């Protein structure tokens, strides 16, 4: 993202293998921003609202969220809904990156306020390509700096 590289990419993905592959392919797409990886929905909200384990944390809220829907401890829908309902966080762009391809569910996510919905390709080659394209896309996206 052209604005300062201080934007952090928050990747909420419960499959560690996928998380790692996403990270590595984003790097190959020349994304140099910090990438924070969290494995469940509750942790994601704690991070966003600086609660519980993240109470008192000082990280930036200048964030881009890459969010999987199938998460333990609160699914992606709930994370999205909570995030968009709070003035502190609703500016954060959310890119849903999940295995789901159901039209009804996709519509539901857009209605909840996600910016973009991407279905993870089931074959790795396409998966890899999709992440690279996402990287290219991110490189031209403007993110609000947050408060």
């Amino acid at each position: 993202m052209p604005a300062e590289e201080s934007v952090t990419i928050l990747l909420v993905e419960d499959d560690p293998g996928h998380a790692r592959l996403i990270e590595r392919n984003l790097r190959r797409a020349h994304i140099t921003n910090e990438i924070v990886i969290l494995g469940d929905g509750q942790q994601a909200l704690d991070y966003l609202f600086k609660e519980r384990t993240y109470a008192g944390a000082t990280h930036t809220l200048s964030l881009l969220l890459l969010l999987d829907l199938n998460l333990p401890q609160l699914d992606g829908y709930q994370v999205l809904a909570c995030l968009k309902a709070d003035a502190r966080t609703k500016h954060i762009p959310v890119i849903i990156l999940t295995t789901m391809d159901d039209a009804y569910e996709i519509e539901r996510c857009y209605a909840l306020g996600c910016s973009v919905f991407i279905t993870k390709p089931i074959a790795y080659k396409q998966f890899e390509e999709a992440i690279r394209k996402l990287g290219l896309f991110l490189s031209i996206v403007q993110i609000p700096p947050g408060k």
Partner: protein
Amino acid sequence: MSAKHVHHQIEALQQQVASLRSALTSSTQGQGGLPLDLLDALQVSLQELYSSEGELHQQHDDLVVVYQQAEAVLRDSEARTRAILQTAVDAIITIDTGGLIESFNPAAERLFGYTADEVLGQNISMLMPSPYREEHDGYLARYLQTGDPHIIGIGREVCARRRDGTTFPVSLAVSEVHLAGRRIFTGIVHDLTARVQAEEALRRSRDELEVRVQERTAELTAANEEIKRFAYIVSHDLRAPLINLEGFASELRIACDVLQAALPAALPYLEAPQRADVSRVLDQDIPEALGFIETSVTRMDHLIRAILHLSRLGRRDLHLEPLDMQALVQETLQTLAHQLAQRQVQVTVQPLPTVVADRIAMEQIMGNLLANAVAYLTPGRPGEIVVTGERRPDVTVLHVCDNGRGIAAEDIPRIFEPFRRVGRQDVPGEGMGLAYVQMLVRRHGGDIRCHSTLGVGTTFTFTIAHQLAEGEAHAG
């Protein structure tokens, strides 16, 4: 011989007497001798008269015999008719034009609970419940006036009333009898109580059966839905690890490339045996291991896709429309034109009935079956495929028959299983085609069977229901 004849004879006799008298009168007056010839004639006439009298007696006796015989026959006939009425199983009642009971047979007595004496001369309406009881006189009067029969000569099921006031269903047949100078009506009453009760019992048990069938169907449908969902979930969830397998196999290759690039510079620093080991690991072992991983991953990917596809086939909504099967089969054959020409296969398509089904599904079914027929020919024998079909009351039946290599009897049940293939494996394929076909055919309320003789040929027969069970068109 008749009385008239005798009469003539007596007249003739009287004339002869008259003649004799005049002859005697003239004789006593001294004119001529005794009239002997006249006396002779008189004698003869008297003789004739005697024999006539005799004949008349005989006739009279004969007539008496005939009369007695006739009387006996009549009595016998009467007795028989009476016996029929007396022993008839059904009630037989006769009434006059005023509706009054003239006869009431023993069966009627038993059926209604009255003795004949109690009802003779009474109005027939006493044997009917309200409102018929009040209306009967009117019906009868109207018929007598108009001659328009509503029940006479027709027969009907009505309600009757016993002495104790209870009502019961009967079948009533009324006929009209024209006697000299008057009419009577005969009613034959058949008790339907037993039949009505049997019908009730049948209806009840059929309703019970219906309910049980519906319950069972609901259970099966639910179980089926569960299985479909399970297949979908499982194959969907199995994808995620696959991505990791593929992804990290790729990462490993990249890492290998890095090592290989560094190798030439590093090799001189290694001792001989180690140098060979490192080279072998980087050039052979790792790539080989990765190769196996990748092949297995690809295989798993295929299998999962196939299961996913199969489960989707079971879930997809069907769009039913009337299909010109003739045209559909021809279009399918077009897509196989190359193989057909190459293997010189003769295809005969008999006139096919129209089928109401999902177009895409039917294309897949016929496509699979015809492709199989072409693929599994016997080398050395010119291929012949015949497609026929017929319409039956509940289903349409379609047959695809080939003269190919055939399937062994013990293998036939397995060909419909997913991922199973039988026989010589010289034809590429995944073993899913017939599993898809079976799924699609079942979605249409039908079934598919296979008859085959090894070395001779195979026929696939499938049915499509004319009317799908409720809910079948929209699944999951």
